[in-house]
């Protein structure tokens, strides 16, 4: 043993302090376990808090305010163009992060969870070496892997801080507002961050690899967003990708292939948001019995157990929906299973949200999935141009739709596009988890005038007794279709 080496013992070692990690750690501690949480950042929170969910939503809030202010002119209130203090924006954004991170640290302390900043590398199924840390080794009875994921890069381009090629992390740092920004990607990160930069003044060019943005959602939900982004962005090009990138002093020369002319263009910066890769490669997992598939995701069962009986895994590193709330629920399952409870991750609906303007949110079965499974469904839609609340907010570009099982009338999936979709999807998730039928939602009173009314209306349309929309023939058909 080397002089000065310090080995600690802990009942439960949680590797990674993001939403999956801290949720698991807190639950385990509440169940009476002795927990050590190891994280590379000085404070817990992970990508979600420091480099993802939270800061992006802070910036999107500002974008929304600016967009609303500009739009108010058409309704009789005109604001002058806003002046942007980037320094202050960064300060405020970081203050939000810090406040939450400090809150998490406080919770660690109050719950007796030992927080160690360091990098864990497994030496065996019951021992980890800690690098860049005061504690050099931890022996544990159980471990939970919550190491998350990192932005994928383009094959030929690495992300570096000084570089003009940004990933989401660098983009959130708001180093400057580039005059021209190429955004590569088709999912929520590309669209959200592109929207933020556009709101701050950049001329944004979006290139999408295939023929549609947000491909996991049904096309009818993405149409209103597409229309809005066509106004907000300088241009959007589909079936286009980056062939090569040449960095110069004040710009990047990008050569692209696809539906874009000219194919070689100069941009001040590029934002690459093409996906995320699991952080499973430098953890020393080869010294354990944990199995990783060829894409780098850790294999787990529905109790979050890996193939190593002592080690569990949750969150982005196991794949599936790479979302913070999925990680948090999995983290709790892992903690409960370790504590001997019969928990399992058997959810029926995981909501997904795109926080653009308009927002998109959905959960459960999509029409496309149903089609590919050959599963019979009935779809009912309520366009927001019929919603009093939507009109009073001047936000009629929206749609609420539900997918039903034609025999049992059970709700199988829900999709919403429009303002505040993030809030509307909560009812849908509960309905799906409870196995609700159209009747259950239709008979529940939805307050008037709210956007949530649209959810009640959709169910009523399905049952042929909608108030605000003419029923056509029988359940499932309406003039609103």
């Amino acid at each position, binding site marked *: 043993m080397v002089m000065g080496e310090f080995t600690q013992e802990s009942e439960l070692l949680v590797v990674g302090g993001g939403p999956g990690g801290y949720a698991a750690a807190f639950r385990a501690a509440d169940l009476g376990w002795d927990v050590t949480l190891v994280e590379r950042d000085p404070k817990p929170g992970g990508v979600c808090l420091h480099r993802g969910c939270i800061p992006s939503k802070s910036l999107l809030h500002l974008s929304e305010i600016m967009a609303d202010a500009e739009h108010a002119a058409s309704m009789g209130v005109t604001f002058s163009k806003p002046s942007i203090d980037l320094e202050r924006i960064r300060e405020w954004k970081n203050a939000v992060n810090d406040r939450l991170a400090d809150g998490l640290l406080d919770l660690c302390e109050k719950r007796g969870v030992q927080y160690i900043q360091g990098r864990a590398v497994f030496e065996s199924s019951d021992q980890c070496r800690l690098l860049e840390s005061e504690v050099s080794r931890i022996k544990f009875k159980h471990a939970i892997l919550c190491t998350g*994921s990192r932005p994928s890069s383009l094959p030929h381009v690495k992300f570096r801080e000084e570089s003009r090629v940004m990933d989401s992390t660098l983009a959130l740092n708001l180093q400057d507002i580039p005059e021209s920004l190429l955004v590569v*990607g*088709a*999912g*929520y*990160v*590309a669209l959200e961050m592109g929207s933020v930069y556009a709101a701050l003044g950049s001329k944004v060019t979006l290139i999408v*690899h*295939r023929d549609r943005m*947000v*491909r*996991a*959602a049904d096309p009818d939900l993405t149409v209103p967003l597409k229309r809005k982004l066509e106004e907000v962005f300088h241009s959007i090009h589909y079936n286009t990708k980056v062939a090569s990138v040449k960095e110069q002093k004040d710009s990047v020369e990008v050569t692209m292939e696809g539906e874009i002319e000219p194919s070689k263009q100069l941009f001040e910066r590029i934002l690459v*948001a*093409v*996906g*995320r890769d*699991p952080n499973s490669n430098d953890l020393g997992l080869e010294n354990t019995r944990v*199995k990783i*598939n060829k*894409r780098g*995701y*850790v*294999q*787990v*069962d*529905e109790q979050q*157990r*890996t193939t190593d009986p002592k080690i569990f895994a949750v969150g*982005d590193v196991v*794949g*599936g*929906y*790479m*979302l913070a709330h999925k990680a948090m629920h999995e983290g709790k399952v892992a903690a409960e299973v370790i504590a001997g*409870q*019969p*928990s*399992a*991750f*058997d*959810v*029926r609906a995981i909501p*997904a*949200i*795109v926080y653009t303007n308009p927002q998109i949110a959905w959960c*459960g*079965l999509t029409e*496309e*999935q149903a089609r*590919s*499974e050959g599963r019979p469904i009935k779809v009912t839609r309520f366009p927001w141009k019929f919603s009093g609340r939507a009109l009073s907010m001047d936000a009629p570009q929206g749609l609420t739709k539900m997918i039903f099982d034609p025999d*049992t*009338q*059970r709700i199988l999936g829900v999709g919403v596009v429009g303002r505040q979709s993030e809030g509307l999807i909560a009812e849908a998730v509960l309905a799906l*988890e*409870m*196995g609700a*039928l159209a*009747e259950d939602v239709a008979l529940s009173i939805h307050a008037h005038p709210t956007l949530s009314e649209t959810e009640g209306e959709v169910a009523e349309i399905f049952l042929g007794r909608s108030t605000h929309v003419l029923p056509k023939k029988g359940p499932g058909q309406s003039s609103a279709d």
Partner: protein
Amino acid sequence: MARDFKLPDLGEGIHEGDILSVLVKVGDKIEEGQPILEIETDKATVEIPSPYTGTVENIAVNPGDVVQVGDVLMTFSVEGEREAPSEPAEEPRKAKAPPEPAEQAEEAEAPPEPAEKPEAVKVEREPEASEAAPSKKEGEAPSRREGPIPASPSTRRLARELGVDLHRVSPSGTGGRVSAEEVKAFAEQPKEAARAGEEAPTPKAPPSEKAAPSPPADWSKWGPVERQQLRSVRRATARQMSLAWSKIPHVGSQEIVDITKLEAFRKKHKDEIEAHGGRLTLTVLALKATVAALKKFPRFNASLDEETQEIVLKQYYHIGVAVDTKDGLLVPVVRDVDRKSITELSVELNEIGERTRDRKVSMEELKGGSFTITNIGPLGGTAFAPIINYPEVAILGLARARWQPEIVGDVESGEYVVEPRLMLPLMMSFDHRVLDGADAERFLLEIVSVLEDPDRFLMVI
């Protein structure tokens, strides 16, 4: 995006078939309509065409598999999309695609497009609490429903805690929803005997002994009776023997072996073994002879896996030895008989026998055997028909060795004598699903040849 291809309805009321051949391999590019599988049903061999144009990402079946309508057979990535499919479920009968397909287009971003979910270890996402044996109770509807059962999260959790499989609960709620009350009621039903048995080796229930409840038996009307509650070893034995008898078609096979020389050998070495703290008994020698025969005929050292329709040959030799205790019959297991010397076995068998009689043997020590020997000889008996220690496939019984006049030599040629020889009756019961009479005879003859000649004994143990 990846597409799972499930076995479509084959028509004519056919709901399952055997995979005859797989006509493509992973990575092949195929056209819609191109034949990809051949399936044999009760009526005919059917060629299954591909429903998609694309690339074969994964093949979930092998020739010989039995598949049901709805089972995932293959997964394709449809033209233009190169991405990983929902990771293949294992065998068709266990396959259930999760409600949220795990796919990731090349450029997809984390949410909302879910990245691939490694499925190899992950089984269903639906709330099946356990793979409960689908035994049908009399007069009830089919006991298993398909697909995710609608139930609130708290009800699903309750089901997990109580070990209830939601698929087996008959719901009364609208649209098939199961309530917490129904789960609790289901859990409180009396469990079928063998399902709860510690000694019942598999989770499968035997054919239910509880048919329509009959009126309580009353023998006292014929005379005075005394009732003794079935408990402990007696109850376990009753359960285990019913199970073994009902499951296994038993056939008996007998031999007689001349152990005159073996007995001399045993007497010669008996004291030296006693000095080591063991007892050199016939059972010890029989253990070794049995293992010699098991090595030569491995199918006697096996179990029948009815689920997978496989004979599982054990590559270890753990022999159970029946011990008569004051509480009943217990069968402690001597492990790795092939690796222990006669001395070691003499010590171990003696020790474990004593501990068993003192009821100081652990549950673990009564499990995990691959074959069983039962020796009634010390008490007497000329022959008996032992019941196989399910889920083993054969059992060897020894009765009492007796001195008998035997013909030694060749009668035909006239060169023979009649001598007293020590003759040991051997009885074997075997599982006719796995073994046949000829196998049994050969096995017994091997044991006979080993026991009747100590030189041969030494060579094979």
